[in-house]
């Protein structure tokens, strides 16, 4: 900062601050308390409540300190008699129209109005009371508004518009009649509101409150941890009383979430108290589960693994790790697989959609995941969003994109065949035919090269192989690409220029890219685009690979992978092997192990005998669920470790109950590589144990105990042995989260990697519609947790398929009819929903319905490189179910 500091006199003391600071900022920095109600560090100051008034002693002016910038020579008194008197009047006026329900108001001591009133010594209110009776009837299960308690501070309005970018509410009316209201003054559920809960967290009074709480009362302990749902990694506070969650609120200091959350984080965490939680280990005898002790259960598992290992060899054993478990647990699990079971047959669910990123980005930019920090995304001038609907799958990323557009003037380039909510924010929306992304991206790359819009410095200095790429791109002329993608060639050129001319252009992609049949190629094509425009690394744009689960990145980092030891050190890498073998005192298994789906096929063929599944639900989340179920049933031995009796657990011989995210210690790594601590807020449910403890006990039972007594010790070893995690330790994480991979991008040259567009096999006759599978905001993954969250469950619709109006006319079906969705692999019966977000020929189903409903339609088609299944689109037909409704 070379700006000159400004010195002012504050309560008789000289203090200085930077130009642009407000009087309030400087007062707080100098340790002077000034009461506020409408102020929040994440919101633009508006000076609505006036309680922060201070006096300028030179002019006698009273001014709201939150909106007054400091100026040289100011003489400010924050506590003058006039200030104090005026503050009392302001509070009394607010109280004059505020109900006297403090005794029973659930806001209790969290109410800032009450706190400020008591702090400045307001006792009786002698003004005539003008009660505002304004309860609003709302039927949604999340938020209720009692605007009789509203003080018109506009925090809710600003949070909704500035932070979340939803704009569901604003002031309506004027004077006494004014209030925050939705469009048309309708209840929240009939508005744009997504029930993210940000307004609830920021409301200073009891005007906006959480509804239908499972447990009420005054919080006794508050624990900081990380949301257990998507890959964003929002910081949350769990407020606890009597070992029950009272509420979940966003962390205002988190650099990622900044006071925001989504509906799942705010109102979905009570699955931890579901009556379906497993409380004791169970062993199946004659088809029925019986409750047993931990010793007995672990004894059965240990014996079975030993027996199978001896009779069929280690290669007949398989372990699935979990992207919902902590880094430490995944690390222990892969050590268990490699050292105790002696197999590299270990995989985790997130690899199925992440592998394309690992390989695609590694071979181009030399990175295993997102290249830039989350903050950088908001600073981008152009954001290219492709193959993801962050509105439902990564809400926090959607907020950041909307903020970038609305507040920083960024341009949004959206590539999506579906009309998602982001479309209304896009400057340019391209609707390619399904499966033609690679052709489109190649077409854009060719335009950038042909029109000489390359970042020459970056290309010449940091990359290789441009000539090969340029040669390979020859055929992707705008005209040719138009023919493949259906996008007018003008739009392709326009998009390319749009992207190339921005100083900072970022790419955000999700499972629409990675779960395609050619996922690796699609990722590499995107990386080419970023490389040729120099959008890699600090100060420029970045590539953001969205993750579906909280610890998807971490599970892979920790080496619950068949081909990598922790930190992506190859299982064949002699040097890495030596280090781990020395530390672990065991011989590591040789050769790349089987991926999850190869193992499933192996089980079906009888080659796999024993399986250890931790926190995954493949019977629902894998393609061709019927086949998966048969494969799991055909195993000699299956042990499932989970918090619920999932569809997979029902097939197991032994079920081990474990602690939820709120009941254990550890770390999660989010999609941009930020490592954060999760902390224990509750005692484990029933007799359940944290996953890490179960793995350690099991190892001990198998006479190969591992020398750790806490997750902290595990992390200490990880930091020593995994270069990527160097420098991570709990003491540091307790102060601040830590973003991995500064300098993660390889120092050696980055490489352009030509990618060929491979046309999708033309659909088999009789399956004319393309089915998309995606997420919805209110449910998550296979639904095993969100379907057990008391309030999210209320929004559970019956399983449905969305289709366009024109298709519905052709099929002669209407909203609410039942139809059969038939693919070459399977069929399901669901309700019809007609939607104007889809083009003719496209149908959409959400992925979360249990019983493998949707995935049952998919056949197992693996990416040739990563062996990850395509789970995004397939061909189907709809059949009317006659005689119904």
């Amino acid at each position, binding site marked *: 900062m070379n700006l000159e500091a400004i010195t002012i006199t504050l309560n008789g003391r000289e203090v200085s601050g930077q130009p642009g600071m407000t009087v309030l900022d400087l007062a707080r920095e100098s340790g002077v308390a000034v009461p506020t109600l409408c102020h929040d560090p994440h919101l633009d100051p508006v000076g609505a409540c006036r309680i922060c008034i201070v006096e300028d002693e030179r002019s006698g002016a009273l001014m709201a300190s939150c909106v007054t910038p400091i100026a040289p020579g100011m003489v400010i008194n924050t506590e003058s008699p006039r200030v104090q008197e005026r503050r009392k009047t302001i509070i009394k006026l607010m109280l004059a129209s505020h109900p006297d329900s403090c005794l029973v108001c659930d806001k209790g001591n969290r109410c800032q109005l009450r706190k400020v009133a008591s702090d400045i010594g307001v006792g009786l209110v002698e003004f005539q009371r003008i009660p505002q009776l304004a309860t609003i009837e709302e039927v949604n299960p999340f938020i209720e508004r009692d605007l009789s308690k509203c003080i018109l501070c506009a925090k809710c309005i600003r949070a909704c*518009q500035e932070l979340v970018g939803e*704009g569901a509410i*604003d*002031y309506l009316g*004027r004077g006494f009649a004014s209030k925050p209201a939705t469009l*048309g003054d309708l209840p929240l559920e009939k508005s744009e509101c997504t029930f993210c809960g940000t307004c609830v967290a920021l409301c200073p009074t009891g005007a906006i409150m959480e509804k239908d709480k499972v447990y009420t009362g005054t919080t006794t302990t508050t624990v900081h941890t990380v949301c257990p749902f998507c890959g964003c990694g929002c910081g949350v506070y769990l407020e606890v009383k009597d070992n029950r969650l009272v509420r979940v609120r966003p962390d205002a200091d988190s650099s990622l979430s900044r006071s925001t959350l989504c509906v799942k984080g705010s109102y979905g965490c009570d699955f931890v108290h579901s009556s379906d939680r497993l409380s004791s280990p169970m062993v199946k005898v004659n088809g029925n589960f019986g409750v047993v002790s931990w010793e007995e259960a672990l004894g059965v598992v240990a014996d079975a693994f030993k027996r199978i290992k001896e009779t069929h060899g280690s290669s007949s054993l398989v372990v699935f790790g979990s992207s919902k478990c902590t880094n430490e647990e995944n690390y222990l699990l892969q050590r268990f697989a490699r050292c105790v079971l002696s197999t590299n047959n270990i995989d985790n669910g997130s690899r199925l959609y992440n592998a394309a990123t690992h390989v695609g980005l590694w071979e181009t930019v030399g990175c295993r995941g997102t290249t830039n920090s989350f903050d950088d995304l908001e600073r981008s001038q152009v954001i290219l969003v492709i193959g993801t609907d962050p509105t439902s799958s990564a809400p926090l990323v959607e907020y950041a994109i909307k903020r970038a557009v609305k507040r920083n003037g960024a341009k949004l380039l959206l590539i999506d065949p579906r009309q998602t909510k982001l479309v209304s924010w896009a400057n340019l929306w391209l609707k390619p035919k399904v499966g033609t992304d690679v052709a489109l991206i190649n077409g854009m790359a060719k335009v950038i090269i042909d029109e000489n819009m390359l970042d020459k410095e970056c290309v010449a200095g940091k990359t290789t192989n441009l000539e090969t790429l340029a040669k390979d791109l020859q055929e992707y002329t705008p005209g040719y690409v138009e023919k493949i993608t259906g996008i007018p060639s003008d739009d392709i050129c326009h998009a390319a220029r749009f992207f190339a001319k921005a100083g900072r252009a970022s790419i955000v992609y999700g499972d629409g890219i990675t779960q395609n049949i050619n996922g690796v190629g699609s990722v590499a094509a995107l990386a080419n685009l970023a490389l040729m425009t120099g959008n890699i690394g600090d100060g420029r744009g970045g590539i953001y690979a969205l993750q579906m689960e909280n610890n998807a990145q971490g599970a892979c980092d920790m080496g619950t992978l068949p081909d990598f030891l922790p930190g992506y050190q190859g299982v064949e890498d002699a040097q890495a092997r030596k280090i781990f073998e020395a530390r672990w005192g065991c011989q590591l298994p040789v050769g790349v192990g089987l991926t999850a789906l190869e193992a499933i096929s192996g089980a079906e063929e009888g080659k796999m005998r024993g399986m250890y599944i931790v926190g995954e639900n493949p019977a629902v989340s894998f393609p061709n669920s019927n086949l998966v179920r048969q494969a799991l049933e055909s195993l000699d031995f299956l042990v499932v470790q989970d918090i619920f009796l999932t569809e997979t657990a029902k097939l197991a011989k032994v079920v081990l109950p474990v602690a939820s995210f709120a009941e254990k210690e550890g770390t999660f790594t989010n999609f941009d590589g930020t490592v954060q601590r999760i902390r224990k807020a509750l005692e484990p449910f029933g007799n359940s144990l944290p996953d890490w403890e179960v793995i350690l006990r099991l190892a001990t039972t198998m006479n190969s105990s591992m020398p750790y007594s806490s997750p902290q010790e595990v992390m200490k070893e990880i930091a020593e042995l995994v270069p990527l995690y160097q420098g991570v330790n709990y003491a540091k994480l307790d102060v601040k989260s830590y973003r991995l991979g500064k300098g993660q991008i390889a120092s050696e040259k980055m490489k352009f990697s030509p990618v060929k567009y491979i046309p999708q096999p033309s659909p088999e006759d009789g399956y004319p519609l393309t089915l998309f599978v995606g997420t919805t905001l209110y449910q998550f993954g296979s639904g095993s947790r969100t379907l057990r969250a008391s309030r999210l469950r209320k929004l559970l619709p019956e399983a449905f398929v969305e289709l366009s109006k024109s298709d519905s006319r052709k099929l002669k079906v209407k909203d609410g009819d039942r139809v059969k969705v038939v693919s070459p692999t399977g069929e399901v019966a669901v309700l019809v929903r007609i939607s104007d977000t889809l083009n003719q020929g496209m149908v959409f189903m959400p992925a979360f319905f249990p019983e493998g409903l949707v995935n049952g339609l998919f056949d197992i088609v693996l990416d040739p490189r990563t062996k990850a299944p395509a789970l995004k689109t397939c061909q189907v037909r709809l059949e009317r179910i006659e005689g119904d409704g």
Partner: protein
Amino acid sequence: MAKLKTKIKAEPSLAQIGKLVAEYRGQKWALIPLFQVMQDEFGYIPPESIDLIAKALGLFPVQVQGVISFYAQLYTKPQGRNVVRVCRGTACHVRGGKTILKLAKQYLGLEEGETTPDYEYTLETVACIGVCALAPNIVIGTTTYGHMNPKKVAQLLGERKGRE
């Protein structure tokens, strides 16, 4: 009585609204001028224009609604050809404004804020129009009628009663 020129047309179509809004695309500052032009053109701001305006100017629809609801001079319902405003300011009150309002209500058969079914008249009150020397006042359209008394009110609005 003098017929006044407040316009009222048939309900504007979305295309008509869209054409008008398009001229202000991207100009966030132009929200209020756009409202005024629209009201001049259609006599009111059709609620279905809120989304179009929000989109064109880069605002949230609720923000547009918020501004409309703030200003008493902006309407979301069609107004009568003659907007009758009875002043309820202090000076007019002292000189019998309350009675003037009562008579206006009787002659027009309207309560405050209402419009006759034939869109001939809308009745409103106004806090002060700044010509207190002429109190009590009635404003019809843009013309002010001062020194009101029951007889003058009957002259101005009585014709209406006779017709009903």
